[in-house]
């Protein structure tokens, strides 16, 4: 199972706890995780990536295994530790404002 950590506002919106678990087929990529996440929680569609372009929203970041995956291709395979569920895929609201 893939573990996904969501930011506070998206947890509230989806009505979930901090971490959700998803079945994601190999290869495990950011796009595949988000596809599975939006299928399970349709209200999150459009909150992490634009519904029309599929692009990450500008103030959302993706972290995994201590690395920033925000600027990697959406179809790039994530580390094995994410694919195995040992480490979570983190969706983060970017620091902004004062």
């Amino acid at each position, binding site marked *: 199972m893939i573990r996904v950590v969501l*930011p*506070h*506002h*998206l947890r*509230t*919106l989806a009505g979930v706890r901090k971490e959700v678990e998803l079945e994601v087929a190999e290869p495990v990529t950011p796009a595949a995780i988000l596809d599975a996440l939006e299928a399970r929680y349709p*209200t999150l569609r*459009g*909150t*992490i990536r634009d*519904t*029309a372009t599929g692009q990450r*929203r500008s*103030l*959302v970041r993706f972290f995994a295994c201590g690395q920033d995956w925000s600027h990697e291709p959406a179809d790039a395979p994530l580390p094995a530790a994410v694919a195995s569920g040992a480490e979570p895929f983190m969706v983060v*609201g*970017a620091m*902004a404002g004062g």
Partner: protein
Amino acid sequence: MSTVRVLVGTRKGAFILTSDERRADWQVSGPHFAGWEIYHMKGSSLDPNRVYASQTSGWFGQIIQRSDDGGQTWTPVGKDFVYEGDLGTHQWYDGTQHPWEFKRVWLLEPSLSDPDTVYTGVEDAAIFRSSDGGQSWRELPGLRGASGHLWQPGAGGMCLHSIVQDPGDPQRLYVAISAAGAFRTDDGGATWRPITRGLKSEWELPDPNAEVGHCVHSIAMHPARPGVLFMQKHWDVMRSDNGGDEWYEISGNLPSDFGFPIAVHAHEPETVYVVPIKSDSEHYPPEGKLRVYRSRTGGNAWEALTAGLPQSDCYVNVLRSALAVDTLPSCGVYFGTTGGQVYASADSGDTWAPIVRDLPAVLSVEVQVVP
């Protein structure tokens, strides 16, 4: 006894304030959608327990919420606002053309004739309609055909912030856009035309009498006089007696004719309310005195309403959607401030008292009277 329900949208959530019709003791519910910007909430006049909310975030985008029990519980509904056809371009701050890009929903206006129909005004400016209670949305693209390439964003963005329905003619709608002007459709939204004759923007436009480009801040109508419109423009308070075909100024003796909201008394079509703001450079009340101004003559002659409002050291603003009236026999008037106060008057503005003092900055105020 009826219940009065005040729907307050703020920078950090929604609040619902309720009272009986004496409007003396209030209960505060909220924050709903805590931490999100709530640009607007409004209930259907046909089904008062159906309430819509525009929930938005710079991080996570746009959500539309609908309640069918007067705001006790909420369900997310449709949020896909896709511009129809050719995306087109509008003027950008630097004078170049810029493609239309959806940013947020500024207001939700439930239909006066069909409980499942609701309109939205969005940024970048366009009007959308849902015929299924908000589940799906279609743009009325004819509006952007009305010289959309000449529209430009105001300081708050290029927003469609006012939708006024003619209660006797569902085919006729008015909208206002910053900074494009005011527009009218007489065919249910298929075609639109600017209604700006008489508006003058001497400091904002190279041609002060231009057909398009005026920064209209809000418009209001009394349902018994659908041909009479009142407008708070960037500068100038204006009036039209022929459905917007021509406008004339009614600023009269106001201490400043700059401001954002405008409202009409529920039972007196010639009684109008504005909240003067010092200037476009200084968005707070003149002299630090928070004063609502009321005209009982349809404009020009205005009186300051001050009883219960701070008359020194007050530097809040009242935004364009943050003034509303109720429909009780003694008309209630309500407004919210950027300082987080919501003031209410149960006597047409003669006296005021705060309902709450310390909310987040108030973006919008709407009122319902529920039997």
